[in-house]
């Protein structure tokens, strides 16, 4: 019988293709569950999960919490604002204090790359990375792959372009690993200052021309400019960025084929994507959000199955 090859989900980089396929297959079953009149199953009623967020989040935290509740797990939430972190407590101490209250799994978002991996080596509970700085955001990549598979039938052989702030994006890195492991071709597109120098070594194409990239792809994943992570200016103005790398209806309609539009959120309407594109039938942005709950249920279910009794 199949099970995950890992005990924690700290990054897509650690997963095998079989792991990813198992998660997506299980997620499809959970998607059916969350469309029932009673959207809840009792599988995890003896599991307690802590959501530990050292960085802001609406969608991801809500999505994780809903996923956990629909699996009947007990949930405690912790956010760094107003916590002992401000009083100088270390990450491991904070989490160990939470675990002392008999918590089986920790879902963590942290501003430092590698924080989830570090934590998984230090504590006994299962760790799920909900975003570690500019490094990885594995569940986002999994739900993106699930959404592509749902819309286009499969991920293998498809061409996906990730547009925007690749340098500061954990979504981009996790997506590259995930899509490549599933057999897709990946391109990144953006101003050269926002494309990491050695990214082509991951086997992705690089383009600095949005039209060219869109003509090549089947799916365009539009990323937000992460101004909060940019300590220096990477481009002259948002207006100039928007003119060169923003996707509007005129550009979308002028393409020779119909492509699928994705966005991990939050959207800056009018910057990387115009309102009419975000709300067009080609956009699967809200499907991504719905699928997020199913995919996170699958990840938590499969990891919980490996918790010793």
């Amino acid at each position, binding site marked *: *019988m199949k*099970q995950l090859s890992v005990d924690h989900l700290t990054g897509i980089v650690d997963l095998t293709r079989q792991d990813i396929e198992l998660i997506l297959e299980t997620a499809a*079953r959970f998607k*059916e569950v969350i469309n*029932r009149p009673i959207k*809840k*199953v*009792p599988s995890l009623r*003896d599991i307690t999960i802590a959501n530990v967020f050292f960085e802001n989040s609406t969608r991801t935290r809500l999505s994780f919490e809903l996923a956990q509740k629909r699996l009947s797990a007990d949930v405690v939430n912790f956010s760094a604002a107003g916590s002992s972190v401000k009083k100088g407590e270390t990450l491991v101490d904070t989490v160990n204090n939470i675990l002392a209250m008999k918590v089986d799994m920790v879902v963590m978002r942290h501003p430092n790359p590698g924080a989830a991996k570090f934590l998984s080596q230090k504590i006994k509970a299962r760790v799920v990375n909900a975003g570690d700085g500019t490094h990885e955001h594995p569940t986002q990549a999994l739900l993106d792959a699930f959404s592509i598979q749902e819309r286009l039938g499969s991920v293998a052989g498809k061409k996906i372009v990730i547009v925007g702030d690749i340098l500061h994006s954990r979504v981009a890195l996790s997506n590259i690993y995930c899509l490549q492991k599933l057999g897709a071709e990946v391109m990144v597109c953006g101003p050269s200052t926002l494309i990491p120098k050695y990214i082509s070594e991951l086997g992705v194409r690089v383009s600095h021309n949005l039209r060219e990239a869109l003509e090549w792809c089947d799916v365009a994943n539009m990323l937000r400019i992460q101004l909060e992570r940019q300590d220096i200016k990477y481009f002259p103005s948002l207006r100039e960025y928007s003119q060169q790398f923003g996707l509007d209806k005129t550009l979308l309609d002028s393409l020779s084929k119909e492509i699928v539009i994705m966005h991990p959120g939050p959207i800056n309407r009018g910057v990387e994507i115009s309102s009419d594109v975000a709300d067009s039938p080609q956009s699967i942005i809200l499907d991504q959000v719905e699928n997020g709950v199913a995919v996170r249920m699958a990840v938590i279910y499969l990891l919980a*199955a490996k918790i010793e009794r």
Partner: protein
Amino acid sequence: MEKQVILNATQLELTLKRLSHELIETHDTFENSILIGLQPRGIHVATRIKAQLEAILAHPIQAGNLDITFHRDDFRRRETPLLPSITNIDFSIENKRIILIDDVLFTGRTIRAGLDALLTFGRPSQVQLLALIDRRYSRDLPIQADYIGKTVDTLASERVAVEWKEIEGQDQVLLFTKEGNEAAQR
């Protein structure tokens, strides 16, 4: 390994026919009744019964498949995770008469989980149970079938396997009297 045929293809066919007639006695034209096969093995019994009923009644019967994985009581009590099969109940079961269908009724735990899973789809007016094989005196829970294909007396160490033409190549019901047999553990 010792194996014994409990029902051969002809007997199995006869049993399914009898069960179908028994169902019609209670459910008449099936106007308000729905067949639900339990994944993974009960769905084959449900498919055969549905075909029999439709042949007799000459109109389509509503039917669906139900997966009970997420409602089982042995999650995290096994070596490997329990992986789900497909559920397709794309109709309302509110105020309907439901016939749950499984191949072998043994401890009753699957049916307990099946009842819980079924009720997440709404509130049926009645739920009945059809089991092709009833392994008598081996229940862990107070659950009995309303329609039984064949009752057998077995030891806990024995296994009963229902095989189908479209999967195993032959319609038959087998009793394995030694543990560790792969086919019998399904």
